[in-house]
């Protein structure tokens, strides 16, 4: 690992990172950069694919994840990867999602340079758009972060508060904010040969001591893990068909959650097909069972079907929850379900490209019947 720093001029964190990105683009080592940039209305920051350094006014701290960056990389690379390197700026959850998509042959990392950014957390899309404080969300967040205050905590999406791991893994380059006074210096680490090659000629300064970064990373990881453990304990009661049905009561079967999920990759969802259409008498027959039958008929089945398909690869980005128009706190069932299912298969989504998805792995001692051992 090579560690360097970006010197921040005039406490302008965002400006300095943009300067770094412009240098990167101008160096010719990458031909374009996918990076979050505020829309002209400033109500939302969306990833933009930028090839002209002059057009770059990115905001990599903008506490918002409007849509899955991993899914965008999938779209760009699935059919054919780029001929020359493209840099993609991603948060840790999205890199994890991308690794899953690569395993599932839905994305290709050829000529994709992953630039991971330390993530303190993101706000729900509407909170960001209608931010009640006087400052911009980015400035508010940076200030709170520097002060180490929990001012921003109340605005974070709940899933970000107990993030599985806010520090990027599997990135070629990492921009580090933990363990540095980022108003003066931002850490730049190369984690691959590609990363090293790219940083080699950029005008960056060498990092003097790396210990504080290590310590801060451990601290934030521990803190988030603790919060996640508490959450798991708190939510362990949502069990059994009645509780689960109650949980999804508000579901209107709009499938937004599926649309937002970075991993969901079927071309046509079974739940959009005609499989669940049936003759009226069949509906009636179902009604006869209890004298009544809740409609839409396949909403709960859809939720359970989606969970069944996605849970082993769930990277806990919470985009499904953010997409729900009726504010169903989906992560309250997805995080516990993911935790249990992934433990059962000793599977770690997004951790390692070579780890095979459980679906294709056969273990002799997998799910033994009671009494077999």
């Amino acid at each position, binding site marked *: 690992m090579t560690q360097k720093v970006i010197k921040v001029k005039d406490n302008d964190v965002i400006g300095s990172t943009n300067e770094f990105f412009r240098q990167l683009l101008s160096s010719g080592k990458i031909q374009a950069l996918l990076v979050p940039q505020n829309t002209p209305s400033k109500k939302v920051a969306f990833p933009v694919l930028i090839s002209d350094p002059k057009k770059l006014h990115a905001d990599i701290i903008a506490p918002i994840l409007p849509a899955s960056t991993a899914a965008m990389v999938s779209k760009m690379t*699935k059919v054919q990867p780029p001929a020359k390197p493209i840099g993609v700026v991603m948060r840790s959850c999205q890199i994890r999602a991308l690794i899953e998509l690569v395993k599932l042959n*839905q994305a290709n990392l050829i000529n994709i340079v992953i630039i991971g950014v330390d993530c303190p957390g993101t706000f729900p899309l509407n909170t960001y758009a209608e931010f009640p404080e006087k400052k911009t969300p980015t400035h508010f967040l940076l200030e709170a972060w520097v002060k180490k205050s929990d001012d921003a905590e109340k605005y974070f999406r709940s899933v970000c508060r107990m993030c599985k791991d806010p520090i990027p893994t599997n990135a070629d380059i990492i921009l580090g904010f933990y363990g540095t006074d980022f108003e003066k210096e931002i850490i730049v680490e190369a984690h691959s040969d590609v990363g090293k090659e790219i940083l080699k000629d950029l005008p960056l300064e060498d990092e003097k001591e790396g210990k504080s970064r290590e310590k801060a990373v451990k601290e934030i990881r521990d803190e988030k893990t603790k919060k996640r453990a508490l959450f798991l304990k708190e939510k362990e009661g949502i069990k059994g068909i009645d509780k689960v049905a109650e949980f999804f009561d508000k579901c209107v079967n709009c499938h937004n959650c599926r649309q937002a999920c970075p991993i969901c*990759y079927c071309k046509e969802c079974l739940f959009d097909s005609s499989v669940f259409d049936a003759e009226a008498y069949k509906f009636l027959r179902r009604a006869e069972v209890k004298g009544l039958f809740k409609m839409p008929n396949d909403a709960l089945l859809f939720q359970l079907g989606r969970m069944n398909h996605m849970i082993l690869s769930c990277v806990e980005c919470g985009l499904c929850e953010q997409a729900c128009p009726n504010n169903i706190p989906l992560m309250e069932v997805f995080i516990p379900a993911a935790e249990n299912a992934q433990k059962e298969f000793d599977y770690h989504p997004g951790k390692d490209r070579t780890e095979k998805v459980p679906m294709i792995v056969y273990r002799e001692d997998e799910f033994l019947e009671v009494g077999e051992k």
Partner: protein
Amino acid sequence: MTKKSETIGAIAVVGGGITGVQAALDLADMGYKVYVLEKSPTIGGVMAQLDKTFPTNDCSMCILSPKLVDCARHQNIEILTNVVVEGIEGNPGNFTVKVLKKPRFIDLEKCTSCGSCEAVCPVSLPNAFEYGLVKRKAIYKPFPQAIPNAYVIDKEGDGKHRGCVDCMRCVKECKSGAINHEQKPEHLLFHVGAVIIAAGSPPFDPVVKPEFGYKKYKNVLTSVEFERVLSASGPTQGKILRPSDQKHPIKVAWVHCVGSRDASVNHDYCSAMCCMYTAKEAVIAKEHASDIEPTVFYIDVRSYGKDFDKYINRAKKEQGLRYVRSRISEITEDPKTRDLRIKYEDDKGEFKEETYNLVVLSVGLCGAGERHSELMDTLGFDVNEFNYVRTSADDPVVIKPGIFVAGSFLEPQAIPESVMQASAAAANAAALLKDSRGTLVTEKKYPAEKDVSAQKPRIGVFLCHCGINIGGYVDVPAVVEYVKSLEDVAFVESNIYTCSEDTQKKIVDAIKKHDLNRILIAACTPRTHEPLFQKSLRDAGLNPYLLEMTNIREQCSWVHMDEPAKATEKAKQLIAMTVAKTRFLQPIQEAEIPVLQKALVIGGGIAGMTAALSLADQGYETVLVEKEKRLGGYLHKVYYTVDGIDIPRLLKEITEKVSKHPLIKVHTSSQVKTLKGYVGSYESDIQTPTGMIPFSHGVIVVTVGADEYTPHTYHYGKDPRVLTQSELEKVLSESTKEDIVDGETFVMIQCVECRDEKRPYCSRICCMQAVKNALKIKELNPRSEVFVLYRDLMTYGFKERFYKDAREKGVMFLQYDPEKKPELESKNGLVVKVHEPMLGEYLKIPADHLILSTGLQPNLDNPAIGKLLKVPVNDDGFFLEAHVKLRPVDFSTRGVFVAGNCHVPKFINESIYQAQAAAARAATILCKPTLKAEPNVAFVDEDLCSGCSICISVCPYNAIERVEEKKDGKTVIHAKINEGLCQGCGTCVSACPSSAIQQRGFKDKQILPMIEEMTEKKLVSYLKES
């Protein structure tokens, strides 16, 4: 198709065990008529009696039964049971086999195996299939999966017990009139071109060794009896109980080598499979009841086969098998507890006594000439000193021209070797009879198929009473009335036996008369009966896949005998479910895959040359590709053998035969560079010294061999006195008497750098190499000294006699513990230090030569070759066959076969018969210009497929690939299933997250209506009840 030829295109296979069945299936698939002549009332042999098989712990019957069913169903196979071969006359290509057919007293055409006769039979006698551990009736079926699936009457009894008493109650009871007490023996003649003897060999009867107490003490069982105890269908339903008091034993001992390696009964041979089945029995016993404490008394643990060592190690480590190295002297019984006391001398020479609740004697096999000498005498075969038939090691399955042998009739051995020899014998027979292939087989002509795909379903439902099997518990007339009410059902009928010949005529007539276009049979299992009913559909002009079956016997009446009302209700539901599917059945056309009738053999050692010759002799053009400059492979490093093969002559002769054969083209210094296609039509590019040569072929045989492992220890390579076994062999082959002086000392160390963590396999051949070279040294100068330091001496089968010979000639065999490996001290000359357990001390042996047995290592190219051919390589680097027991030369990828050392290290004779076996299996594909594809294949909806490739990872047959295509100017990626390779297992269908794969005959729109029918109806009735 009739062809004029001088040979007869039929083969008699004597013996219907797994060996005979395999030989019959191979030959029948190649287009020969086969008569299986079986002495007992059923085929299946000993394998049918086994509980599990090592080293995979597969259920023996579960893997055997499909083969038996295939054999029974095969158009070209005729099975004759209760027959004795009385003589074989004639010449190769034209034999007459004289057979005495004993009466079965049952008409096979009529018996439906319903079992009502058995219920009324008053005679009870020991059940031979269960080794007398339980009783059976005089009218009986040997075991539920018996083939022919019919009863038999035992008129003779077993000497002590009387058989049938002619009370005729069974005759009255039998509704199909199948019993005929007046049947007489018949003499039959079969005209065949070749004969394969696969008559097996019986287990040793330990009664002749009174010290083991067998038959004297109730709690001493033989290992074959214990197989039945373990079996879920056996006398104790798989509960481990000891015979004296039906109590569960805790301390169980197995005693190795009972009747094997024993001069006192003229069994100076090793029975080759007992070490492994003992470990398996102990492991399975432990799985059944974890409180069992298993102890194994052994001399050597002969774990010489593929993955055997790993199995033994796991058994020791995970199942806690305790191994005690000792030949036991006596077993006595405590008359009070009926426990058994075993006296033995341990490896330190101390006498000990231990008490066990149950003792299992691991019995070996007896030569066929010893126990049923009538067959050997009748046939006049040459026998060896152990009463086994004698063949030449370089032509291992040939008894004499036209008469071949396979299985344990030849030598005690386990199932894979038997199966390979069966296929090898088939290859030899096929080569002899190549001109009459296809002359005696007939293909049935059917009327043209009506196109009913667009018609509204008109379902015909045929219900079976199966005598009283279904009718006795399920109210069939009530079910008939119910089924009439179901939508789309146009015709319903019930019959006493739906499978009987006259019912088939009724089915055909009903289809025509009522214009039925979908058929549902509610009876027993499709496994045995589907082909029969499919034929009836074809006779009536319907596509055979417009048939659906539902099992209202095994899955209904049999399991609900005590609740007939519920059984009737369930039968209705099962049929309603199946009607829901039948409605959506569509005709399936069986695809024909073209076959280029040519073969590619990769690797030109003894296995490759043998495979090429066998294929060419059967009439198939073959290209043999060898990487090195000359043919021969590892054979160039072998100079002599103990079993009489003149290696240089063999090498010269076979190389010449291969080079001169008009149908073989040899490319040396060549390699297969690229390979495209699949079974039936491969295209290879072969890099030869003169350029790239393309070759199109239908099958591939991989025989790339292995080489001696080069050691890194014991100063090898630094001290010229340290050699490997094959280097020593070369030196000895060039030595004369004068070259070895009196007292010259050779120390051989076995298992050098193998059977350890890094190379955790036994190379099978090295112990024999050591024995062979030791004998050679002693032959050159009897006053020389040879020490062999070994772990377990793997001289299995008849090789044991050479081990004994070596001991008698003064070769010193010292066993060492792998934890205390021999050490080399070479300050002043070579001194080998080894721990001697008897003395409990280290011995120091000054040596003139140190010889290292390092075994073979797989070809380093194997992974690359595996990738090219889409076939797997195991952890040790050897090729991994489709199934270690029953498909030892096939890969799961159809059309690719394996033989020789690249499969696992083996002896020359073993490579030869395995290569012939591979040729036979390949010929089952090459024999016809087209190959029938599996009808129920899977197919991809390209618009739904995301190309995630999960299906590719889970496909066991490598039948799926990910393809990139241009569609409307856009690149699209999707999975593509090769219909020639797909076996219709359905794994991909269930794995596909996008429902983009469907399987013919099992489409979602056929299965979902069944589930809907079942869940909703059941739910409704359940909720209404409660």
